[in-house]
């Protein structure tokens, strides 16, 4: 991809904080989310779910439900085919259990009826004959030979012997001589950690409206992070051509990775096909918790050696992640990112993915990284305590930098870790006095960031204003930042640009809104599309002036002669050029399609102060500061918003959020009451410090910022709590009963 090697340094629009284009719709209740759409003749779809953790489905009798007045269709796995692609088949089997219910809440049948009441009644009339099987929900138990097998024959070829069949993949990363490294250490600490599964916790439950017609055409409206991916998966499952299924993304009420896949969409399409009517399915919160993507739970061992002066000599991690009832690669991201913040001569991480009778894991903000980095950063902190070293100095001493061979292989380009650590050290927070029962913790965080397939179409309207069509659902204000980058490149005011999100028929394929990729990739494609439009405009002006195209330059929203030699002409503004476009060759547009690479990795550092009640084990976060490299903050408010929101999700993970399974394998807390996400009164202000170390892979230096902020809070909080109570904590969440117990144990 040809990009200007010269980086833009001075910005007029990028870096400002204009109002978001979707703002008024969202504050007036006008914005249309997944559940807000209706269609003529629409039916209500409802899903029947397994009450068991693990059971063979011997038979399903739907006759009584079908006979109920008002029921228009009933579907089970028998109504779906068997897609060739294994990952798509897994998605389908997760949407509708085939032969076996693999977890509590796994879908087994669905109905469409003319009212919600009838649909609910119909579910009760479906008779499922289950043969209950032994189940396993704990990662370590699931790995042991003899554990109940969730799915047989799913292991990749490289899994070592000695595990149960639930271990589906194994990965290993690293370099150097570990033994020699540990031998050089003055202190070696090895610890084991566990983290609970957490849910993305978006406030909007999954919802969709599907309409299939007898001629095989389909329309699907849904809340998703990627309408194109939804189309691919649903078309494959439904046996349709992509051209026949149009998917429109609604406004999305939070995703955080959890809406990068499908749960109800194929079911709604199947019900619509069978009933000949539009079908809407809206999940309840109970269904969201039971059957949509939590992240993995983990069991981990970390061993690190350090010299007296704080140099890490060797580092090793073993990661065991359970990702529910289907194979997952999330552990590889954990294994690669565990030691990413460090410049290490000897490092090794090994990871295993494990099947359990839990819902299929879905991506959650920097998937796989928070838990691994929590374990690593906890051991580093303990070493600092043991060796009486300053934890920031130690991180600075060992910090990865440009030219460091990363723990996952490649050598880093320009990265912002050192600058971020230095900013934390210079910040008044780091040296502020602590009160009684208080402790301060810090942690580094890392995420790879991705680019990916991206299309942008940019149209110069006849009045000189600009319409942009892009294909990535806006979950954090990206329509504003895309408009800003277009305005910057074209040299026009932000208000002259309007960006919309296209349906799948309006653009080429776009990857989902994930990997912190949108501001980077769509921004990059927008800039390139704008440059293409500028080239057309300069060409038109060159013809009018009768000079070479090369002799026309673009500046401040106008075409100008490149210099005195080009001739003397008054600049022509974008409005003037657009107004006569019919005379000069027709409508003017620029477009750009790319599979963007060069996203640029992202680092952050968080500082957390906590106070622990010694009599109850309750933890209060009293001060919190986030430092992160944004490359270039296009809209600083929204960068801060990502930093604050990610930090608070991480705080919830560290303190109270967890999937609680009973001995019966059933989920105990499928609701916001007992799955305790942080509420406003739990939190202090979240201070933010944005660093800008330009990403060499983006014309404006932009890096993704969305995912990294969820990584550091886990260890920052654990280190703060451990220092506050004088005991090391090795388990998340650090709920009050655990802390009270730890405090009452002798050192």
């Amino acid at each position: 991809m040809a990009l200007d090697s010269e980086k833009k340094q001075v910005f007029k629009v990028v870096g400002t904080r204009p109002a978001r284009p979707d703002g008024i719709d969202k504050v007036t209740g006008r914005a249309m989310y997944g559940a807000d759409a209706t269609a003529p003749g629409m039916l209500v779809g409802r899903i029947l779910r397994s009450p068991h953790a693990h059971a063979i489905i011997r038979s399903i009798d739907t006759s009584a439900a079908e006979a109920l007045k008002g029921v228009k269709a009933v579907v089970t796995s028998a109504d779906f085919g068997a897609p060739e692609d294994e990952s798509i088949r897994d998605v389908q089997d997760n949407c509708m259990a085939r032969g076996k219910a693999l977890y509590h809440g796994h879908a087994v049948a669905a109905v469409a009826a003319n009212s919600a009441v009838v649909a609910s009644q119909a579910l009760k009339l479906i008779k499922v004959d289950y043969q209950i099987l032994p189940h396993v929900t704990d990662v370590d138990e699931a790995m042991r030979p003899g554990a109940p097998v969730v799915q047989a024959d799913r292991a990749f070829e490289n899994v070592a012997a000695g595990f149960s069949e639930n271990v589906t993949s194994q990965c290993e990363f690293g370099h150097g001589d570990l033994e020699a490294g540990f031998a050089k250490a003055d202190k070696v600490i090895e610890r084991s950690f566990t983290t609970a599964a957490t849910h993305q916790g978006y406030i909007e439950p999954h919802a969709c409206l599907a309409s299939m017609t007898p001629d095989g055409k389909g329309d699907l409206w849904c809340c998703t992070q990627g309408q194109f991916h939804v189309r691919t998966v649903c078309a494959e499952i439904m046996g349709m051509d992509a051209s026949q299924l149009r998917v429109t993304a609604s406004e999305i009420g939070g995703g955080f990775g959890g809406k990068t896949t499908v749960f109800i969409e194929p079911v709604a399409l199947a019900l619509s096909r069978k009933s000949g009517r539009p079908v809407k399915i809206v999940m309840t919160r109970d269904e969201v918790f039971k059957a949509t993507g939590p992240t993995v739970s983990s069991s981990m061992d970390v061993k690190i050696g350090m010299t007296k002066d704080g140099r890490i000599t060797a580092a090793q991690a073993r990661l065991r992640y359970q990702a529910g009832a289907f194979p997952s690669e999330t552990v590889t991201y954990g294994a690669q990112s565990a030691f990413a913040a460090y410049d290490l001569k000897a490092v090794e991480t090994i990871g295993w993915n494990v099947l359990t009778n839990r819902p299929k894991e879905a991506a959650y903000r920097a998937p796989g990284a928070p838990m691994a980095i929590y374990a690593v950063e906890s051991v580093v902190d303990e070493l600092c305590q043991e060796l009486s070293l300053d934890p920031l100095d130690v991180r600075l001493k060992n910090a990865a930098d440009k030219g460091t061979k990363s723990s996952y292989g490649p050598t880093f380009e320009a990265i912002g870790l050192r600058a971020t650590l230095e900013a934390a050290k210079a910040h008044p927070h780091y040296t502020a006095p602590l009160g009684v029962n208080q402790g301060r913790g810090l942690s580094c965080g890392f995420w790879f960031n991705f680019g990916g397939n991206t299309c942008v179409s940019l149209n110069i309207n006849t009045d000189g204003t600009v319409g942009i069509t892009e294909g990535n659902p806006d979950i954090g204000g990206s329509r504003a930042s895309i408009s800003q980058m277009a305005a910057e490149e074209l040299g026009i005011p932000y208000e002259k640009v309007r960006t919309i999100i296209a349906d799948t028929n309006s653009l080429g394929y776009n990857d989902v809104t994930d990997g912190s990729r949108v501001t980077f990739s769509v921004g990059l494609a927008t800039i390139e599309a704008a440059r293409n439009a500028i080239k057309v405009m300069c060409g038109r002006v060159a013809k009018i002036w009768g000079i070479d195209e090369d002799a026309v330059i673009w500046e401040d929203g106008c075409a100008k002669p490149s210099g005195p030699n080009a001739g003397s002409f008054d600049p022509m503004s974008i409005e003037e050029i657009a107004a006569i476009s019919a005379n000069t060759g027709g409508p003017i547009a620029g477009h750009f399609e790319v599979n963007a690479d060069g996203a640029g990795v992202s680092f952050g550092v968080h500082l957390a102060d906590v106070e622990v009640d010694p009599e109850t084990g309750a933890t209060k976060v009293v001060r919190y500061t986030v430092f992160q490299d944004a490359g270039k903050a296009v809209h600083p408010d929204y960068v801060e918003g990502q930093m604050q929101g990610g930090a608070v999700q991480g705080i919830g993970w560290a303190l109270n959020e967890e999937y609680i399974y009973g001995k019966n394998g059933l989920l105990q807390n499928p609701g916001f009451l007992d799955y305790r996400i942080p509420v406003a009164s739990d939190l202090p202000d979240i201070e933010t410090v944005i660093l800008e170390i330009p990403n060499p892979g983006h014309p404006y230096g932009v890096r993704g910022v969305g995912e990294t902020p969820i990584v550091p809070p886990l260890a920052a909080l654990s280190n703060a709590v451990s220092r506050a109570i004088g005991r090391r904590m090795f388990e998340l969440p650090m709920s009050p009963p655990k802390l009270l117990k730890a405090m009452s144990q002798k050192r």
Partner: protein
Amino acid sequence: MVKVLIWGSLRSATEGQTEVEVDASNFKELLDQLATLYPGLKPQIERGVSLALDGKIYREAWFAEIGPDSEVVLMPYMTGG
């Protein structure tokens, strides 16, 4: 010839080596060569691999050019949240 660093769990397919040499000038050639020389790598290549070229990660780009002195690291294909 370019040196390709592979990740640890693929060693079983490369006779225990973590660095292998192939004759390739772009990502596509590299993948084809690897699959030919080390058939044990094929399942992973089919599941998806990315390429880090001098520190920059290419997730899919076949025609990413590889110079003779390039640092080439094979990585699992990755997605985010």
